[in-house]
Each structure stands twice: as C-alpha cells, then as structure tokens.
C-alpha cells in the first residue's frame, strides 16, 4: 500500500470535481497546505465550497483560488486581510457562511467523528442562531450545529512516516487535525517523510488511517502575517 505520491498534482488525481466541498487546514498563513492549493488552482476545478478558518490573503493561501474565481462559497470564521475576497463578497459573487471559530473546528471534528449534529451555546441569541434549532438543556439554550463531512481534506503537516502517521509543529497544528478527520479522503503535504518506526507512537497527532495520500512539499518558504519582536536587553 503506497501512500506517497511524487507531487501534489498526482496526489489529487481523481479526487477533484466541480461543486465539491473541501476542508482546508491552517490558521492565517500558518500551516496552510500550499502545494495542494497550488495544484487545485492549476486543475481549474470550480464552484468549490471551502471550509477553512480563514481565506488566505491576496495571492497567498486560499486567496489564490479566490483570485481565479474557483470558489463559490467559504465557510469561515474570519476573512480579514483579503481585498479580492472583499470585492467578490461585496459584489455578491462569493457566498460566505460565517461560523464561529470554535463551532467551525467542532463541526469538522464532528463530521469526522460520525456526529451529524451537536448543541452549543456559542452564538445563541445572535445572527449565527438564525434558522437553527434551539434546545434547552438544564435551563440553558443551545443551538444545533451540523457536522462537516468534506469530499476532500487538504492539510499541511510537519513530519509523516511512510505509513501516514503524522505530526504537526507548534501552532501549525490548528485546523489541520480536525480538517483531516472531516474528509472522506485526506491528502497531506509535509516537510519531511521519515521511515516507519521513526515517530513516537505515543505522540502521533494524526494516525495513519486519516492520511490516504501523502506528498513531500519541502522546501517551504513560510510566510508571516505579523512579524512582532522584542529587543534584546543590553548585556
């Protein structure tokens, strides 16, 4: 069983179709599946619905797919820092389902865990609750949110072994883990592929069962949105 593909294009072969739902990992530009986004752009697949916390920035991340008008709808919690997004949204060319960040993460996790719906207090009494079932548990109101089961999940990891066991690095884990589980198929790109047995079995963030196809995406030129630093005290 070979999970390793030579490149992103090969790894996505046969998985893309117009109108599909894709779950994408990443938070801002941290831990985004760059190679896979590039290959989706190159494929020309269109009318995509994408579930992702953010929508990239102009010309970075999912911003690339917005620029080429391949996206019909975004399910996201925060879409600032993206002028083309703003233009399409205000022109009514792009549909957006604003979902609270935690609800979005849980919707992906639920979809991947066979849970079609769950109740949360997040958004009760706000626009987010409109059209949703409200149920009272122990005297408090909660709204019903739906699990997200994506046709495809695209994620970026740090290291994977050849069987597909995968680990993330620092805050680049973010939505990559729940997005991966939400996909009927998950394709992962990583910075390093290591032999089976190299990773600590107690410290696998994403067991191999979730990683159906894998590519080595390195080298990466990781982008930073806000570079904030402090001065070193004089010795």
């Amino acid at each position: 069983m070979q999970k390793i593909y030579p490149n992103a294009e090969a790894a996505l072969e046969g998985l893309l179709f117009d109108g599909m739902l894709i779950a994408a990992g990443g938070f801002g530009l941290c831990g985004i599946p760059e190679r896979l986004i590039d290959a989706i752009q190159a494929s020309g697949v269109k009318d995509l619905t994408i579930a992702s916390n953010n929508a990239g920035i102009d010309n970075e991340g999912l911003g690339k797919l917005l620029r080429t008008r391949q996206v019909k709808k975004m399910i996201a919690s925060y879409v600032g820092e993206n002028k083309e997004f703003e233009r399409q949204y205000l022109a009514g060319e792009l549909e957006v389902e604003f979902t609270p960040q935690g609800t979005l993460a849980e919707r992906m996790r639920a979809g991947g865990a066979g849970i079609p719906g769950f109740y949360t207090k997040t958004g009760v009494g706000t626009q987010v609750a409109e059209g949703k079932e409200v149920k009272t548990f122990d005297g408090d109101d909660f709204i019903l949110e739906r699990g997200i089961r994506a046709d495809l999940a695209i994620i970026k990891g740090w290291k994977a072994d050849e069987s597909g066991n995968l680990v993330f690095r620092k805050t680049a884990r973010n939505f990559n883990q729940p997005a991966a589980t939400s996909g009927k198929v998950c394709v992962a790109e990583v910075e390093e592929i290591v032999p089976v047995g190299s990773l600590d079995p107690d410290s696998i963030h994403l067991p191999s069962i979730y990683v159906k196809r894998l590519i080595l995406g390195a080298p990466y030129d990781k982008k930073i949105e806000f570079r904030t630093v402090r001065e070193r005290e004089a010795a």
Partner: protein
Amino acid sequence: MATQVEAKGWDRNQMAARAAKELKDGYYVNLGIGIPTLVANNIPQGMTVTLQSENGMLGIGPFPYDDQVDPDLINAGKQTISELPNTSYFSSADSFAMIRGGHIDLAVLGGMEVSETGDLANWMVPGKMIKGMGGAMDLVAGVKKIIVVMEHTSKNGDPKFIPECTLPLTGKNVIDMIITDLAVFQRPDHDSPFRLIETAPGVSSQEIREKTTAHYVE
C-alpha cells in the same frame, strides 16, 4: 469635552492594568487583540497566570527576539510569539473544547457596545465589510468570567454601555465586568444588574451617569 475626558480618565495601559487586578494565581486566561493584550504586561510578580491562544496553545511567551522568529509559532492575532517551559500545543478543535467547556477562568475582550443585560456587540457593523467573528462568540459563551475593556463613549461621544445593543450581538447576557477609560461596572451573576464599583481618578459618579444610558446600580 472629549479632550477633558481623555485627560482625566485611564489610558489604554491603565485600563489593562485595572483588568489585570482581576487575575488570580493559577488562572488560565484568554486575552483579545488590542487593549486586552496589554493585560499580559501587568501580571503581578509572583503570580502564575497561563495565557491561552485560540489557535492551539497554552502558555504564551513574549514576542520573540528577532533571530528567534518562527512562522509556526503565532498567536490568535497572527503575531509571532515565543513559548515558555510550560507551553503545550493542541488543535483548534481541542482549543475550543477547552474554551467552550468552561475551563478558561477569564477572558478579556474589546467591545463596541455592551447592554445593561450583559449583551456584547463587537464583531460587525452593518453596511461595513464583515471580517467575521473569529473566536469571540465561542469565548463569551464558554469562558467562566468575561471582562470587556472599551472606551466609555464612541468618538462622537455616544455612550457604549447602553440599554440595548444596536449592533449585531456577539453574545447574549455574557458579560460580567466592564472596564472603560472612566469607570468599572460589575455584576455578581447574569441575573443581576451591573453596579458601578469604581471611577477613574478625577471622574465623578455624576459624570458616569451623564455618559451612560444603560441602567446600573451604584
């Protein structure tokens, strides 16, 4: 009058310092962007307070030195940060399980409007580009205690602590404490009215009454 207010009220850092007085040893805290971030600079010496970042981190350190910047290490405001010896990382799903599940002791957030029944509006202005609520709705719904830090009045001098929010809500009946540049309001539970418990130096209760349309007790 606006200039007078600024002169005699608390400045941004003083507001953050006031919020920091609500910290307790052992607290796990989430700080929003803007003034709330400054609370981190005001944690009393000797007190252990662990900061959470929604994007999947407990134990936020200071901004990194220039040569230690790491693109894989950012806070929820997408700023580069550093880690601490007690840091742990986890997924966004696990992060919000922590938030929604009531495990975070305190969150300090900015606000556009707060109603007298504790509703908060801080995520969108109709007619303007909507950027999204990010994690704010989850925080106000899940965290044990919510403090809003905001200017007492808008740039036009309009009160921001009001009978009912005019902007779309972030959360209904969720705020426990309001810290403005002029005063502090608090309520013991979500069924009680807010009480004016403190005014900034040089600010009278009378002035607060004039600049507040929300009902509160003194």
